[in-house]
């Protein structure tokens, strides 16, 4: 195979993966909402979504996000404010803090946390369930695993991504401004009110779309690759690796599109 063939093959594979993933997301959403429409009083799926939000969102609040917010607030945001004040205007500081840190960098970091923390865990869990015939046994009882496992995960991870991203952004900026006020000048506290006034509704809308896509892609990759484990235990780490790498590539690609 020459270099051109390898590149062609890789590109073809990449496009097929994207199409597969989009098809998977659409199928999961269609089946999930159709199930919920038919079974309005059924609490099984709703409880599963709540469990997913607790696992992905609530459980990582203090243990991961709070600590990361303090670290990033101190090591990056506070330094950035102090440095930018010396070389730029107040508007430029706000622009960088709001557009680049809050709306672009923090959602990306949140997505990376979710990929590492629960995306991988979910892919392993699904892979093990597939290999142990647990999925097949359930399907024989008429249970659609896409509705029972993939749909709650898709909805739960999306809600978790949005809420964690809001929480992470708010905390990081708050700690950043506070540390810059402590270590530089208390006048830096003015950025709180200026930041709040500078937020545009359209930017919040893009922030929401961005995070929704991140959440859906992370969950879909984990479920898709986990459910594709078929015969051997060795497939589990291979699929988990693919789920993590595809999720990372996808969120970076979406971030680039968001910037453009």
């Amino acid at each position, binding site marked *: 195979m020459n270099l051109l063939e390898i590149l062609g093959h890789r590109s073809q594979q990449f496009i097929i993966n994207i199409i597969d993933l989009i098809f998977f997301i659409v199928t999961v959403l269609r089946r999930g909402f159709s199930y919920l429409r038919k*079974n309005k*009083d*059924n*609490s*099984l799926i709703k409880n599963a979504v709540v469990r997913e939000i607790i696992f992905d969102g609530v459980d990582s609040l203090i243990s991961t996000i709070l600590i990361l917010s303090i670290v990033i607030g101190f090591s990056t945001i506070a330094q950035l404010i102090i440095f930018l004040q010396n070389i730029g205007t107040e508007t430029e500081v706000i622009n960088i803090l709001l557009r680049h840190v809050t709306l672009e960098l923090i959602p990306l970091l949140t997505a990376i946390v979710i990929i590492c923390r629960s995306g991988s865990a979910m892919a392993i*869990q699904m892979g*093990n*369930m597939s290999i*142990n*015939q*647990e999925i*097949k*046994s*359930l399907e*024989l*009882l*008429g*249970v659609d695993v896409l*509705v*029972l496992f993939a749909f709650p995960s898709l909805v739960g991870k999306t809600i978790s991504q949005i809420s964690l991203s809001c929480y992470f952004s708010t905390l990081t900026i708050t700690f950043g401004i506070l540390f810059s006020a402590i270590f530089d000048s208390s006048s830096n506290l003015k950025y709180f009110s200026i930041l709040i006034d500078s937020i545009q509704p359209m930017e919040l809308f893009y922030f929401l779309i961005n995070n929704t896509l991140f959440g859906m892609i992370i969950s879909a990759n984990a479920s898709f690759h986990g459910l594709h484990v078929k015969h051997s235990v060795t497939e589990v780490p291979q699929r988990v690796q693919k789920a993590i790498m595809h999720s990372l590539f996808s969120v970076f690609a979406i971030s680039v599109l968001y910037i453009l």
Partner: protein
Amino acid sequence: MNKKETLIQATSAVPKIEATSLTQSLSCEISSASLVCLLGPRINALNSHMEMLAGIIAPDSGSVNYSNNLSTDNNYSTISYIYHNSTLLSILTGIDNVKAPALYHHFAPVNEIDREAEILLAELNYGADHKILPAFMTALQKKHLLVVRAIFLKPKILFLENPFNDLDKEQIQVFGNYLVQLVKRKNITIVTSNVNSDFAQHHADQVIYLSSTDTHVFEQKQDFCSFLQLTSI
């Protein structure tokens, strides 16, 4: 005594499977509330014939017909099938495993499903804790819970591949008695493959023996006993 209804009728049916040369055709009638045992030297052939009877694989030749009471659209509600390697969901406790399919199908209100699950588990008649994960259960408890999970959906027929696989002699006795009691109390038909000939001899209402070349169907216990003596199996 209730008249037994024919649920499945197979006529010269040979399962359609790839990479194997299955030639034995099966002709039999499976009645309601009966215990049917498929025996024979080739375990794969037994399981393939059982899958064909359950409608999981199609017949290559011949036919398998179902009674009108057996819906083939949502066949989980009338036909349950437990593979020899079927397992409970590892992420749920025993009792949650039992309730999950019933909750998914919205079989009844939640409190009724809870009550029904407690009743079914109490029928197992031994002091096992069902609020633990399958990883901490004995092989017998897992087998019991797989059956309870399946019969929770009130199927008319339950197919069990190699039900005594992984069980010791004492556990086989307990699980065998449970299956016999299920047929009597719940009026369910149980079709098993690859059970020991002692169990079949004492409890089966019908024995289907698939040898390497022929298929023998025994409706009477005496006929099967004579066959066993004759062939010294």
